[in-house]
């Protein structure tokens, strides 16, 4: 029965797309959402049965794709990603119902979104190279269409889409090379065959295949040198699309690395996993730093996606490292922590992007410096953003904390080790984990505080009002998931363990005896998130009770008084005097000045009469992306220069062209002689 679910997913997704572009405007979105939900639920049922029973589900038919036929193998590892994608998709499409009236109801958009969701549901289930690449390309193209939805209104959407298209396809070609190289050596393009033949592949092939896969999937996951498209494309995409991209699509980059690194090649030498960890550390720090200092809400969220994916890469790298140095138990825990971080990230990043979309709809802008006081005006969206922000800052009652705790435990317990590589990697990993946690906490205090608290800093924020109910519900669904995963992570862990057993070679089946507490098998690491949350709630209620008691016991019953905030007796206390996102992040920007390299320009215009009196001083600072500035711009410049030179060759004279032909002919003949 469960193979059927994959087929239903595909058919439902296709019909959603057809409904999306065929039906008239009014019913188009509703029909597309209904069919997409059908696809998601079918995929959920299929993957949950796989996760429950533990053995993979195989389906192949040679009729659909002309040359190679379609083979689908849904194993526990893929099933985890399918479940995550399905949940995020359900929430985003629910959000889309309310969001449609804001420019996401065109034919292309309402056809592209269902295709995007369906392709992401089926990518982890792909069983052969051709199916995988075909679905991967479908996903890339449909997401590109979604990024281009409102390119008529804004110019930077076009340039963002350009960046996104180029980098996605550079990554896709790297993946193509890697998989094709592997399937060529294996002689058969199904993943099972590749895994069998992977053992006696020459080392050079294995290394190049892994590195190419790391480049391809790393660019999809937003690993730093290849992350440049992320802060450009995600903010420009409409909110449900960017929630799906950040919540589900980047996970598939991680799935790819684990697929090629562990499942297909069955692990590799230590330097593989050191590179993955190094890329993870750099991505985490770079993403967190830029998230802390960016003032555009969605750009902040996009950079924190790169940072969280960096943390996941640290987990994956650590798990590979421990597997090579002979600690399968700890390698399993590290992989479970990586998967848990991915699941958590999908939950809180999805809710953050959706509520950021609601804020953009309500206030009309994404700039944090113009927001403020939104929690009073948009209580539910504000509360959802608050929960999402606290979750991503890894604060205890919520799910971000459990993931980081597990990663810390796996790094810690891998330590008394012989190999120096691990001995160096682990403290560096812990330091990166810590600084990223600190910076993310600062970034999200800024986002919540400057965005939602205090007084409105612009007209848009002052007149904001709550968004339609379906949009709130969509975001709240994912925020609820954050709370549930934070208090009771045990519901997810057995599934993640079974996925790890499928991925990490030699991992014990039960690495975490999970009851009320998370007890690490064979190690002294225990955490009871439920008890911690209960303790916090109890303490919270106790403190409120004691405070009310103390007030009532005092002889004067004084009512609460609302007054103008204290500003040193200043006459007029305006909203402009509050700290903005730029000033909030200014100390951090100063401390990390040489990494961020903000470009500041200050121009002073003097009065005509004399230079001693300045008329106007204009100061402007902006933080560009260092990687983009120093790596990509020079490359693009070089390509342009070379292109310019090449134009000279074609100057229109027929003779020159004939001469080219003749010269080439002569050269060839000369060579033959």
């Amino acid at each position, binding site marked *: 029965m469960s193979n059927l679910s994959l087929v239903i997913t595909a058919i439902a997704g296709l019909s959603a797309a057809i409904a999306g572009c065929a039906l008239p405007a009014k019913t188009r979105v509703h029909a597309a959402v209904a069919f997409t939900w059908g696809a998601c639920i079918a995929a959920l049922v299929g993957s949950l049965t796989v996760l429950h029973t533990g053995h993979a589900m195989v389906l192949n038919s040679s009729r659909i794709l002309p040359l190679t036929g379609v083979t689908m193998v849904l194993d526990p590892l893929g099933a985890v990603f399918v479940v995550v994608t399905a949940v995020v998709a359900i929430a985003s499409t629910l959000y889309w119902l309310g969001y449609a009236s804001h420019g996401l109801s065109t034919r292309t958009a309402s056809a592209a979104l269902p295709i995007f969701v369906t392709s992401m549901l089926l990518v982890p289930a792909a069983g052969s190279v051709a199916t995988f690449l075909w679905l991967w390309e479908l996903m890339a193209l449909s997401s590109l269409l979604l990024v281009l939805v409102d390119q008529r209104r804004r110019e930077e959407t076009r340039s963002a889409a350009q960046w996104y298209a180029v980098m996605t396809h550079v990554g896709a070609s790297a993946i193509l090379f890697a998989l094709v190289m592997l399937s060529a050596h294996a002689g058969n393009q199904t993943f099972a065959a590749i895994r069998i033949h992977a053992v006696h592949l020459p080392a050079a092939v294995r290394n190049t295949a892994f590195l190419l896969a790391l480049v391809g999937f790393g660019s999809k996951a937003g690993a730093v040198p290849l992350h440049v498209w992320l802060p450009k494309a995600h903010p420009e995409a409409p909110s449900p699309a960017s929630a799906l991209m950040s919540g589900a699509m980047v996970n598939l980059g991680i799935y790819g690395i684990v697929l090629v690194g562990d499942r297909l090649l069955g692990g590799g030498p230590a330097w593989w996993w050191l590179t993955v960890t190094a890329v993870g550390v750099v991505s985490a720090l770079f993403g967190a730093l830029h998230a802390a200092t960016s003032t555009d809400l969605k750009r902040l969220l996009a950079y924190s996606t790169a940072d969280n994916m960096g943390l996941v890469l640290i987990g994956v790298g650590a798990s590979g490292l421990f597997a090579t140095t002979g600690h399968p138990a700890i390698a399993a825990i590290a992989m479970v922590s990586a998967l848990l971080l991915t699941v958590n990230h999908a939950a809180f990043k999805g809710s953050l992007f959706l509520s950021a979309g609601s804020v953009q709809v309500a206030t009309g802008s994404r700039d944090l410096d113009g927001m403020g006081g939104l929690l009073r005006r948009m209580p539910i969206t504000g509360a959802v953003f608050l929960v999402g922000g606290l979750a991503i800052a890894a604060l205890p009652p919520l799910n971000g904390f459990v993931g980081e705790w597990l990663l810390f435990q796996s790094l810690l317990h891998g330590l008394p080790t012989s190999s120096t590589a691990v001995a160096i990697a682990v403290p560096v990993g812990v330091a990166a984990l810590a600084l990223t946690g600190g910076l993310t906490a600062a970034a999200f205090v800024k986002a919540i505080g400057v965005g939602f608290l205090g007084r409105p800093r612009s007209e848009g924020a002052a007149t904001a009002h709550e968004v339609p109910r379906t949009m709130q519900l969509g975001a709240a669904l994912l925020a609820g998931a954050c709370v549930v995963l934070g208090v009771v992570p045990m519901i997810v862990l057995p599934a993640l363990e079974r996925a790890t057993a499928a991925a990490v070679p030699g991992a014990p089946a039960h690495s975490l005896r999970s009851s009320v507490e998370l007890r690490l098998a064979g190690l002294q690491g225990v955490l009871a998130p439920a008890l911690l949350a209960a303790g916090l709630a109890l303490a919270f209620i106790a403190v409120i009770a004691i405070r009310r008691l103390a007030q009532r016991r005092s002889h004067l019953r004084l009512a609460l008084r609302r007054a103008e905030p204290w500003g040193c007796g200043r006459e007029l206390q305006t909203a402009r005097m509050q700290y903005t996102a730029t000033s909030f992040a200014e100390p951090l920007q100063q401390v990390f000045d040489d990494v961020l390299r903000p470009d500041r320009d200050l121009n002073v215009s003097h009065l005509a009469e004399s230079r001693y009196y300045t008329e106007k001083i204009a100061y402007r600072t902006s933080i560009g992306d260092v990687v983009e500035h120093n790596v990509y711009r020079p490359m693009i410049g070089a390509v342009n220069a070379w292109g310019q030179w090449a134009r000279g060759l*074609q100057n*229109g*004279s*027929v*003779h020159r062209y004939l*001469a080219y032909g003749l010269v080439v002919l*002569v050269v060839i*003949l000369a060579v*033959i002689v």
Partner: protein
Amino acid sequence: MSGSAYASSLELASGVVLVCAVVTLWRRSLSAIVKALAVQGVALGVVALILGVGKHDGVLIAVACLVIAAKGVVIPVLLGRVVAGDPASREAAPIVNVPASLVGAGALTFLAYGATGSVVALIPTTAGRLIPLGFATMLIGYFAMAVRRKAVSQIVGLLLVDNGIALVAFLATAGVPLLVELGASLDVLLAVVVLRVLAAQMWSKFGVLDLDEMRELHD
């Protein structure tokens, strides 16, 4: 025909073809070039005829007559009418001056001999030894197209290339099957007609048949 007479007449005819090719490079006036082309067409037909007679192959003889008719008579006449309409019938200064282009032709012939060394070794017959001549004609024709400015000399260059190929075909395969030859001739005829139309267009548009005028179209 006796062996030596057969061989010497064959060499003569092929030599004439090559010489005509060189003449087109050497002479500047278009009418002279068209005449050289005609001579070359006829020489090519003669080569085919000799081969046909030598092999007593009726089809080859028929092909030879067709070649003489088309390449020796029809095409030069067409081109002649174009040249007649153009008062400045002198070739403008070609891109590469005449002596240099003659030296070039020589080098190309030398190269042709070098390149076809292995082919000649393959076909030990008398005809086989003459293949480099055809090859050289083709290279010279290509060179003429690249060097000359006037549309007509471009057409002539193209025809030289075609004759060179036909010559090699005749010598190497001892007679080209009728169908292939017909196809090739048809193509050339088509090319000539198109170029004829193009030349007429250029003539009406620019008033001069100089290819450099085409450059304005580029930017």
